[in-house]
């Protein structure tokens, strides 16, 4: 079993006819994901990799019973795509798009609270449940089924850690990229809670970075509520304050959000913290 996805997941792709959308649609189908349709306004009736394209999310849901959506829509149009998925009753929305303005995301975040949808991302690699489904852009071959849950703000750094786990013999239940933006739909705490409740997940790996206090909140949650062991890595120890490090959310502001404060919080919550991501597998023993 995995978190967030199951064999009942029926996925649509918003932006399926775009370059990114079409490329990753093929990758997701090849991985075995139950991808049922796509949406691109004005291209209803076309087919992409054998999947029907609809003009809007509502039509795609009515025709296919879709309950999950992945969004590969450019930043200026991505918030609209998220609202459309929420209003069509999609339960799980994964938004890969990078560069959505923060004011737009604050509205999306508020709207989500009054809905039954869960958003993963934006600015994330999506999720990968080895052997079950891939909803996103993570390369499938780096993972294998197992009992470790992985949650991360990053993309390639996540691949790095997942690949190291796989090579060391640790398979995964689910790898979740929650995104590197200041405002994201699902945070560390919510994901940790899902791993804690998932009977198949035995150990958890958390990959954080500088900026904000999500890792400190995660440490508090781990201390108070988690029975499963957690290993972690925090990126950005050598980053200077006040400068954004690629991700919109990776910035030390007013002396807060440093790697050191996050590492200390995690250590005091009993988390094993690696100072080199290649050490992570050895911390799970």
């Amino acid at each position, binding site marked *: 079993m995995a978190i967030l996805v199951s064999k009942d997941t029926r996925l649509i792709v918003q932006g399926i006819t775009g370059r990114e959308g079409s490329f990753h649609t093929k990758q997701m189908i090849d991985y075995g994901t139950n991808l049922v349709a796509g949406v691109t306004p004005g291209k209803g009736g076309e087919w992409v990799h054998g999947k029907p394209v609809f003009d809007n999310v509502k039509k795609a849901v009515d025709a296919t019973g879709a309950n999950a959506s992945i969004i590969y829509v450019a930043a200026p149009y991505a918030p609209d795509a998220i609202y459309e998925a929420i209003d069509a009753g999609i339960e799980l929305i994964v938004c890969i798009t990078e560069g959505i303005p923060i004011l737009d995301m604050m509205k999306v975040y508020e709207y989500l609270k009054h809905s039954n949808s869960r958003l993963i991302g934006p600015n994330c690699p999506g999720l990968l449940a080895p052997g079950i489904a891939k909803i996103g852009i993570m*390369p499938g071959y780096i993972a294998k089924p197992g009992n470790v849950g992985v949650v991360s703000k990053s993309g390639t*750094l996540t691949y790095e850690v997942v690949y190291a786990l796989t090579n060391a013999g640790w398979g995964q239940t689910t790898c979740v990229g929650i995104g590197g933006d*200041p405002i994201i739909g699902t945070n560390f705490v919510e994901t940790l809670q899902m791993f804690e409740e998932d009977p198949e997940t035995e150990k958890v790996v958390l990959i954080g970075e500088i900026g904000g206090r999500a890792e400190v909140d995660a440490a508090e949650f781990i201390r108070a509520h988690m029975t499963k062991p957690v290993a972690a890595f925090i990126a950005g120890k050598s980053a200077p304050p006040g400068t954004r490090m690629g991700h919109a959310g990776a910035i030390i502001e007013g002396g807060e959000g440093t790697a050191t404060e996050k590492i200390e919080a995690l250590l005091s919550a009993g988390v094993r913290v690696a100072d080199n991501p290649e050490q992570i597998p050895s911390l799970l023993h």
Partner: protein
Amino acid sequence: MNLHEYQSKFRFAEFGIPIPRGKTASTPQEAYEIARELGCPVVVKAQVLVGGRGKAGGIKVARTPEQAEEYANQILGMKIKGLTVRKVLIDPAANIGQEIYLGVTNDRAAGKPVIMASSEGGVEIEQVARDKPDAIIRERIDPFLGLLDYQTRNLASGINLPYEHWRAFSKIATNLYKCYVASDAVLAEINPLVITKENQLLALDGKMIIDDNALYRQPQLAEMRDTDAEPKEETEARLAGISYVKLNGQIGCMVNGAGLAMTTMDMTRLYGGEEIGPANFLDIGGGAQASKVAAALRIILSDPNVKSVLFNIFGGITRGDEVARGILEALNEVPTRLPMVIRLVGTNAEEGRAIIDNANIPNLTSAATLTEAAKKAVEYARKALAAERGAQ
């Protein structure tokens, strides 16, 4: 993207916030003319994108136009924290009664805008947060409703503002929030907002940071970018679509992905100790077109502190052989004799490594793990530094 004080304040004025009726000058002569026109005393203020201008001697009160000219002459061209002053703002001096802080920013944890006020104006809000956290009054804002009138009254009451100023204060708070939204700001701050001895509220200093992700729909603000205030490599990188930040170390890093780029920096510091560390943050993004790799390499090598280069590429969707070819093409375009270490993992990594090895470039070695790559890059940089010292 940071705006200068004068840009922020002029923007505030467009939204009905009272500011001193000052003007900018690029020459001492202009400063003289403006001071004469405004009437003295005036304040001559350096326009640079760093804090601590006052302490550095970049803010001075002039009693006469001649004095304004003299101060402008001193301040223009002055370096403050490495940045050259190219403009001064000449403001009429205000009779300050009380100093207040008022700012709007994003509350990441709440996912909402937050407006903050404090009776402790004139000092950095971070310092107030540390020393006197109770002195900051916060109101979180529903992004669909906007700032409500009662919230502005809560701020006024929370900072013990005399009743006579409530109406003017509420209007400024409402307009500051409007300005924040209309400008796609991540910070819009008036510090200090003063009550003058004439009992007027006035935004004496202003600061705005604009969301880089929103610049596509803020063309007017995007044009205000002061490229003089950033290292020229950062300007070049931005135009090439590469995310680059210059640092002070010796190891040039080229990585795909922001999290992995930070990690690579951290590894060079971990194995380099205090002496050796990262020369830059660089995320080359997805794909590995030779043109982009070449642009990135050119930027890295333009930093004279760089003693070795570390490529760390995780080929996810990107294939390792393509990356290897991209690097070789880039090296043809941008030849260098600096020692380089390349670490390729993921899809077609072995093919990629073979391509690198077969190219027989004497100063390019490959590494299997990030640990090994970081250690090698550190070792090369350390040797280069030792050789330089020996030569001196």
